[in-house]
C-alpha cells in the first residue's frame, strides 16, 4: 500500500501544518512510513502552496508523489494549479466556498471548512477542519491517531479549539460521504 496525498491552498492557510499532522499521525501514532514535503512561493501570505504526504507500509524511496490519490483543496488558484496529476480514482475534498469553480465533471466531497471554522470563532483552524474531514472521508488512518497528532502539533493553549475543529470537520466529512 502506498498513498499520495496533496493538500493545497494559499500561503498562510496552514496547508503545511495539515500535511505535517497527517504524516505524523501515520508514522508516529501508527506504524506506517511517511514523508512530507512542500513547495510554496516566496510570499509569506498568498500564492499557491502545497504540502504532500506519502504514506506507505513499505520503505519510501522517491519522496515526492508521482500521482495523487487524495487531493484536499482550500483555494481556487491551488485547485487549478495542482490537479493535473491526480489519478482517475482520486478522492477530492474541497471547500466549495473557497473553490467556487469546482465542477470538473468528477465526484467531489464538499466540506464547508471555512464556515465551520468561523462558527468556532477563528478561521485560522480551517486547515484542522479539513484534516478532520480528511480523516473521515479518506479513512486510511484511525481517527484517534489523527486527533492525537493534532493535539501533539498545535500550541497547548489552543488545544480545545483545534480538537473542536477536528471533530466538526470529521462530522462534516461523514455527512459529505452520506451525500454521495
Amino acid at each position: 500500500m502506498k498513498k499520495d496525498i496533496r493538500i493545497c491552498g494559499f500561503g498562510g492557510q496552514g496547508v503545511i501544518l495539515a500535511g505535517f499532522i497527517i504524516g505524523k499521525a501515520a508514522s508516529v501514532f501508527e506504524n506506517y512510513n511517511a514523508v512530507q514535503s512542500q513547495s510554496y512561493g516566496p510570499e509569506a501570505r498568498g500564492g499557491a502552496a502545497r504540502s504532500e504526504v506519502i504514506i506507505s507500509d513499505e520503505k519510501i524511496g522517491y519522496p515526492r508523489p508521482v500521482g495523487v490519490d487524495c487531493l484536499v483543496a482550500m483555494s481556487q488558484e491551488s485547485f487549478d494549479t495542482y490537479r493535473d496529476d491526480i489519478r482517475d480514482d482520486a478522492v477530492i475534498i474541497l471547500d466549495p466556498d473557497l473553490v467556487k469553480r469546482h465542477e470538473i465533471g468528477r465526484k467531489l466531497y464538499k466540506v464547508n471548512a471555512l464556515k465551520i471554522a468561523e462558527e468556532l470563532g477563528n478561521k485560522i483552524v480551517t486547515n484542522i477542519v479539513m484534516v478532520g474531514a480528511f480523516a473521515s472521508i479518506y479513512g486510511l488512518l484511525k481517527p484517534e491517531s489523527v486527533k492525537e497528532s493534532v493535539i501533539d502539533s498545535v500550541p497547548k493553549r489552543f488545544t480545545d479549539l483545534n480538537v473542536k475543529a477536528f471533530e466538526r470537520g470529521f462530522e462534516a466529512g461523514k455527512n459529505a460521504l452520506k451525500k454521495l
Partner: protein
Amino acid sequence: MKYKRDPKRIREVLGKKVQFILGDIACVYGGLLAGVSFFGGYPITPASEVAEGMARRLPRVGGVYIQMEDEIGSIAAVIGAAWGGSKSMTATSGPGFSLMMENYGFAVMTETPCVIVNVQRTGPSTGQPTLGAQGDMMQVRWGTHGDLEALAFAPSTVQECMDFTIEAFNLSEKYRNPACVMTDGEVGHLRERIVIPDEKDLKLIDRTPATIDKKDFIPFTNSQTIKNCKVPDFPTFGTGYRTYVTGLTHNEKGFPATDKQPDHERLVKRITEKIMDDADKLVMVEEMNLDDADIAFVTYGATARPAESAMEMARKNGMKVGLLRLKLVWPFPDKLITKLAKDVDKIIVPEMNLGQIVHPVNEYACKHCEVVSAPKIGGEMHLPMELYKYLEGK
C-alpha cells in the same frame, strides 16, 4: 563558564523519542546529542531552520548561539570556540559555503575540530534559493586552496541527518579536522520519522586533551598520549599549555616556518595522513542487490532515493540492478569502486549537478566497466522513471 554535556537536559529539550521532523531540525538534534556547545549562525535558505532550531534549543542546554555578521564571521567564531574547548558547528548553503572556504582551510591547517552542515541548493551564485542540489560535492574536497583531506557525509533520510551530524562530530574530534554534513534542500526540507538513540547506544568521541607535563608538550606533532597516532593532543586555550595557532606553515611548536620545504611537507603530510592512514576503516556505504548485479547505481544523498525506486522497478522486470550508496563521500571509497567496476558491466552515477562524483567513480573504475553520468539540475530530483531509462540504455 565551562559547558558540561548534560544528557538529561538534552533529552528534555529534544522531547519524545519518536518524532516526525524536518531534516534540518534533525541536524540540530544530532549536534545537541553530540554535545555541541557553540553555534555560529548566519541564516540562508534552505539551511535557516538549522540556525533557528539551534537558537531555540542550544541556550536551554547551556550552550551559546551567536548570529554572526556573515558566514565568514560564523566559521571564524566556530573555530575560535573549538579552541576554547567547545564542540562547535555552523550550517549554511552554497553561497555561504563559498564564503567559508578560506577559513575552512584555516581549520584544516590549524587542526581545529568543527562541523559544517551544508544544506546544498542550486548554483552558481544565488541560484535557486529554495531548491535542492548537490553542487558542492567537489567544493568540499577541493574548494579551499592547498592540500587537504575532506570528511564529508551525505544523508539520504531525515534519520541520517541526525545520525551523520553525530558521526561528523566524532570524526572531526578524532582527526582534528573539519567535517561536513553535505545534505541538500530536498532532504533538509523533508519531514520523516526519526528515532532518537538512547544514551547507552550513543557512541561519542572527544578530542584527546593534552595531559603530558606542560614543559614537554609539543602542540603540532604526533599524539603524545596515543601511540602511532598522527593527531596531536589538543591544548584547549586556558588550560596552561603553550600554543601558537597560525594558518602559516608552522613547525611542531606551532611557530611560523614558511621558508623551508621540509617543514611544509612534514606538516601537510601529517595533516593528510592522519586521515588517509585510516581510509579503509572510514568506508561507510550501503550496498543493495549487488551480489548478482550487471548494472549498479553509485549514488549518495537525496539522489539515492529515486535510484532505489528505479532499482526496484528494474528488479520487478527481471533486470539485475544493484546500488552502492556512499554515506561518507570523502574520503572516497576508491578500492570499493574498483572492485565494483570489476563485478558489473555498467555503473550509473545520478547526481543533482552536471557530474561531480562521477569523476572519482570514473577514475577508480579503472576502465573495468562503462561509467555513465546521470545528471539533473534545476532544483528537482530525478524521477525514478528518468533513472529507469538509463538502465534501459536510453
